[in-house]
């Protein structure tokens, strides 16, 4: 196995972080504005505490969102602090990284339309199931 040099590994990591840097900064600025603008009560109205509906909304928002997962953690974490349910946040985080609407054309072209459609659809449904199971287990301990 051919390894890369330490210098190259550092450069790659630096490039990777630099690429997501504007997105991170923009997300934190946006989250700061949203958190200041909307009171916590706003989110309790939006998320009704209905298990299926909350996780469905979270999955839907996560599926159509794009960007590095760091952004999803920052956004999800700050929204959790604002009172959004853990269930919705979990579904959002899982859908963000497992459902790829933007990559769908490339995935269809290279791995086949049927596969790409089935994989993304099942990933969407699973994000809801994963959220319900995870939150139930975490809540039980």
């Amino acid at each position, binding site marked *: 196995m051919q390894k890369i040099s330490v210098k190259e590994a550092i450069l790659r990591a630096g490039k990777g*972080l630099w690429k997501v840097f504007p997105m991170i900064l923009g997300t*934190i600025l946006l989250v*700061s*504005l949203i958190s200041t603008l909307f009171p916590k009560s706003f989110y309790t109205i939006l998320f009704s505490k209905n298990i299926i509906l909350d996780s469905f909304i979270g999955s839907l928002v996560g599926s159509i969102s794009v960007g590095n997962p760091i952004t999803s953690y920052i956004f999800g974490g700050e929204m959790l602090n604002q009172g959004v349910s853990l269930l919705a946040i*979990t579904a959002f985080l899982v859908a963000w990284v497992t459902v790829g609407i933007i990559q769908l054309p490339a995935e269809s072209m290279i791995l086949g339309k049927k596969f790409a459609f089935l994989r993304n659809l*099942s990933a969407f449904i699973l994000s809801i*199931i*994963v959220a319900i199971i995870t939150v139930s287990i*975490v809540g039980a301990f």
Partner: protein
Amino acid sequence: MDFKNKLKRIGSGWYFLVIVSLIYILLVIFKQDLFFSSLNFFYRIMLKIIPILISVFVLMVLINYFITPKFIMKHLREKGFKKWFFVVIGGILSSGPIYMWYPLLADLKSKGLNYGLIACFLYNRAIKIPLIPFAIFYFGWKYIMVLSFVMIFMSIIQGIIINKLMEV
């Protein structure tokens, strides 16, 4: 390089940052109290996440150095149950943009890797080791451990379902 090509090279992240910055410029003109409250909130988040960003960088360097696509692709060729195990591990350890992996997976598919294993690999890419410090900071150890195990389990379920559905 002409202006059009230069614009193309600017990532969408920078456009996003410019748009958000413009909103802040409008705020400083028309709604200064909201501007300063938001900026104060921004400052507090930045203070919290800078040390985490440093640990993310260190983990990224380590993964880049030790794990190469060649290393992962080699282990995806295992047989039987071991194959599922290495697909899960391979997915977790793989880095870089997802589209980079499509041609490599298509190549492995032609060499016998089934659709279920490909789906399982892609699902496990969602578990990012370098980002664990961020995940722990916001959600805690217990939550991230549980979420990761549930996701690994579900990735295998998804793989089995995809295999069945692709046969239909």
